[in-house]
């Protein structure tokens, strides 16, 4: 069943078929994790005892709040099966998620990501420029999200060139030499959005390099660029203007659902890949929002077997604009992101002492 989703060409599974296959798979995963992860079983027993089992609709699949991976170790494999532990990047001081993968799930997520990336890169591995420093991925034992992203994407390229040095300076001479060796070839560029903007684009003169046969994939969000007030449109325009880049695509994904990324289509929408789907929930009733109405994003993935992350309520806000009917030709839910749920500043205090005031009747 899973294979029928994974082996199809990217963005080719029609809605009804996908929902049927996914729902069955997710119900299986729920049972698998219930049996293998006592913590997950405890959550189901306490919070989901009234939900239909097995789920008949995607919206009936129990979800976990994604932050739970920050406070709790959740996994469905024994110690000796742990092959890799992924951590979310997180801001300094904030708790990070820990995601446990065994060999099988690590392999599956790589294959799935490859299937999705075909939509942008085709099946041939392209010469690849990583818009980061090699040093970022050197520390192989702690896979933070940035290193994991780079390493994950690197498998879709060849003859890798890291464009920045350890001090995040552009290796200009080496870049020119590398490009000289790959004239006329289709290229693949990958980097984090703010790195691309600050340390690559900001260093280049218009026309200095020609990337008209290249595809740039970038992720990590706009947060670090907010101070510079850079939006998606300007980002894309400047890139085209300076480098002639043919195709720029961001993506939406999280370490807690590694392997299933939502790629940005040429219309600027993020599409759920074959193996995943998205639901938008009303933040008061937690019912499903109709397409076109914004809400809290729930992501569903058919991949996670080593940890119970197949259905997660995120802290992101978004809207499903359409399903299977995006003008770009890709099938799957087409999503617009609206950023993070703002952190709540409650009137009292969690770390500060709140003493009494006369609210007495």
């Amino acid at each position, binding site marked *: 069943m899973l294979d029928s989703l994974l082996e199809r060409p990217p963005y080719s599974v029609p809605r009804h078929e996908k929902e049927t296959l996914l729902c069955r798979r997710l119900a299986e995963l729920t049972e698998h994790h219930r049996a293998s992860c006592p*913590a997950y079983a*405890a*959550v189901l*027993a*306490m*919070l989901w005892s009234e939900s239909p089992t097995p789920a008949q609709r995607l919206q009936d699949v129990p979800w*976990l*709040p*994604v*932050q*739970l991976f920050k*406070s*709790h170790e959740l996994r469905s494999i024994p110690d000796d099966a742990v092959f890799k532990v992924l951590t979310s990047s997180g801001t300094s001081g904030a708790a990070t998620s820990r995601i446990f993968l065994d060999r099988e799930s690590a392999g599956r997520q790589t294959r799935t990501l490859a299937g999705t990336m075909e939509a942008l890169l085709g099946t041939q591995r392209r010469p690849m420029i990583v818009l980061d420093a090699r040093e970022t991925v050197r520390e192989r034992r702690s896979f933070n999200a940035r290193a994991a992203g780079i390493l994950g994407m690197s498998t879709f390229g060849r003859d890798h060139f890291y464009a920045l040095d350890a001090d995040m300076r552009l290796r200009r001479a080496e870049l020119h030499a590398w490009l000289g060796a790959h004239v006329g070839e289709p290229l693949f560029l990958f980097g984090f959005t703010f790195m691309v903007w600050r340390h690559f684009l900001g260093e280049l003169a218009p026309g200095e390099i020609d990337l008209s046969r290249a595809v740039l994939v970038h992720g990590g969000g706009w947060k670090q660029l907010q101070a510079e007030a850079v939006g998606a449109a300007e980002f894309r325009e400047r890139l085209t203007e300076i480098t002639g880049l043919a195709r720029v695509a961001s993506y939406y994904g999280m370490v807690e659902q590694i392997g299933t990324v939502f790629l940005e289509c040429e219309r600027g929408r993020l599409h759920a890949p074959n193996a995943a789907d998205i639901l938008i929930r009303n*933040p*008061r009733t937690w019912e499903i929002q109709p397409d076109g109405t914004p809400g*809290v994003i729930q992501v569903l993935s058919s991949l996670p077997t080593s940890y119970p992350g197949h259905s997660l*309520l995120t*802290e992101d806000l978004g809207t499903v604009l359409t399903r299977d009917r995006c003008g770009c030709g890709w099938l799957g839910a087409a999503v617009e992101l609206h950023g993070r*749920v*703002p*952190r*709540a*500043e*409650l*009137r*009292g*205090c*969690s*770390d*500060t*002492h*709140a*003493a*009494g*005031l*006369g*609210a*007495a*009747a």
Partner: protein
Amino acid sequence: MSTVRRLAPGPGDVELESLLDELRVAPVVEPFGDLALEACDAVARALFRDPAARSHPDLIALASWLRRPNTARLASEARSLGMRVPRGLAFHVPPANVDAITMYSLALSILAGNRNIVRLSSRAGVAAARICAALDEALGAPELAPIRAGTAILTWERELSATAVCSAACDVRLVWGGDETVRALRSLPVSPGAKDVSFIDRFSLAAISVDAWHATGERAREELARRLCNDAYWFDQQGCSSPRLVAWCGDPQRAASASEDLFARLAGALTARGYELPLGAVTAKLAWIAGAAIDRPLTRVRDHGNELSILTLSTLTGLDREHCGAGTFLEVTLPALADLAPHVSPRDQTLAVYGFPRAELERFVRLAGGRGVDRIVPFGEALSFDHRWDGMNLLTELTRQVTISTGHVALGSLALGSVALGSLAA
């Protein structure tokens, strides 16, 4: 020299060291004397006049507390405590998010005759601005010049140097910020003779007699739910005095129906009030509750929308006091109030109660044996400020006691005593 911003009285940038010099020579004000009472009353009047303050129920409660009838009661209590003199210079570090505490802390210290520095957080809110404005206006009166000269509300960024200077200079330091702030301030010493008064993170709870609940009429139940709503939700259940656990004392089955009843009414009170949590608090709470399902001995979780969740515990054994606030009630059923006593921890501060005779409450306090619970209050008064807080009487903490002994010992026997001591020493 470090420059800090003075918010009141007389806003503007000041040199901290020269300000400290000025405060040191400010006139001594008689503790609990007329001038001190007048200063508090003047701030109260200014708050009552301020239309912007009137929309803050906490400021209105503060203003009532600052009025003469109340401060006169405090003065007479203070006079009953022996001869009290000011400690000198008080340094207040109020909590970032509960603005009114700033003024309660300052007012008690003004009443005690101290000179005062208050370090207001840069995160302080609208209510703090109204307090500064009221203070500025009130202390502008010529007769209050001695108090004005001894009062400074300041703010500075997180830099430690100004905090260190004030800590070293003060005679008493009041830290309201909770564990983390207390820990941070402890690294900045006060002088050996100075006193540190610290308010740490606390946890609060409620206890209800199941029999009393069932014997209570419809309207009184409605009122109790409304009061619980005030107590728990005024600070989004994040205040140290906000009840976070409800202990039902009595028969388990009758307790279950009482619980359904109370929380349904509480949900109604929340709806009537139009209370809504910000989404970020809701998602954080959902994650906390899922974590509680993993870590805690729960038998049931239910909710009334985003704003109210009830987590039933099978036992209080091992209960840490971690809690996400935001309308999350732990509940447990015990045979009697006395059965709560073994579970009391030093974190526990306020116990809001309904339906217990005083003798039973006293027995509970004796059984708890001082491990925790500093206040027992009726529903609706959990958040009322009191000068007795966290087990301390602030009138005592902010003053020193002078004893005078005269006349009872005859001079002759005194001389003899000296001789006797002298011969012992030889």
